[in-house]
């Protein structure tokens, strides 16, 4: 019981914020609840297939393949694959985090995963079409190219930093998870 409470302490805290909001600014509280319910419906539809997909990836895709396609030795081809995977119309960014974690466990490089996450959130093709419509071709194109360049740079930088100062706590939890799954 206590453990469940501990696990869900953050969502519970948020519920209290909503209650407070309902007392002080009822308008904002009702707007917020509508948004939350809408997003909940979306998540309830999207998350289960995403996690099953992740499970399938975990069981079927061999580590050496991912290492070859997306590892640190994959070079420009790896970056291109990450970019192409990211731009597919696949839904909101939070869907991508568990997938990225699986890919890193399987040997994908940090640079490629930063490019993957970045294109997922910033360079989606359907999103680009809306952007062109409302902000013009030159705006959309300039942002697209500059963002892609920035993502590569951020990727290289993060790979270098994380190699020098690895996130030990996270690596530990990762290796625990791998043990659990095998």
């Amino acid at each position: 019981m206590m453990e469940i409470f501990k696990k869900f302490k953050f969502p519970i805290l948020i519920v209290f914020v909503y209650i407070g909001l309902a007392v002080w600014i009822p308008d904002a509280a009702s707007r917020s609840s509508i948004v939350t319910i809408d997003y909940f419906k979306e998540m309830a539809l999207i998350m289960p297939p995403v996690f099953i997909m992740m499970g399938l990836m975990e069981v079927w895709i061999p580590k050496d393949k991912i290492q070859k396609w997306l590892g640190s030795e994959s070079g420009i081809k790896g970056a291109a694959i990450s970019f192409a995977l990211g731009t597919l119309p696949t839904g909101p960014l939070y869907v991508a985090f568990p997938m990225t974690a699986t890919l890193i466990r399987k040997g994908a490089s940090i640079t490629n995963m930063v490019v993957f996450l970045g294109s997922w959130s910033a360079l989606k093709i359907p999103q680009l079409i809306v952007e062109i419509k409302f902000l013009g071709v030159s705006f959309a194109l300039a942002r697209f190219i500059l963002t892609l360049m920035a993502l590569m740079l951020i990727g290289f930088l993060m790979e270098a930093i994380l190699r020098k100062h690895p996130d030990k706590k996270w690596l530990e939890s990762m290796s625990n998870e791998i043990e659990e799954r095998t």
Partner: protein
Amino acid sequence: MVTIITIYGLLGICLIASVIKSKDKTKKAFKIAGKALLKTAPSLLSVLGIVGLTLGLLTPETISGLVGAEAGFSATILAAVIGAVTLIPSLVAFPLAGSLLRSGATVMTISAFITTLVMVGVMTAPMEIKELGKKFTLLRNSLGFAAALIIAGIMGVLL
């Protein structure tokens, strides 16, 4: 809608292939999926709650009022911060940005808003930390924020 059809379509194909190849491995995949979903549930729910809160408090009208016509550097910074802490669907964000641009906001301010909106996710950070670690999340988001400001500067000069 397109998203949901794409995901379920893809999943259907993969599942059929998986079951044909090995039932045991498919079962294992489901087990892994269930465990991971349960583990992520608290941070997922938190993200949902925070997204609702910000969208309820920061309506399009409020944002227009904050970064509207008053040009200048402080408006750009403010736009970048709003973009970083909110999670607005692109179908809402781009029309809003377009109308702000027409009503007198600078290109620099608008590109700062759009770029941080898509590159920096303060809202989704609890989930990102859970899946990818604190260091990764902090680095990716802070570097993304800095890059967004630079991109906004370049776009302000270019366009």
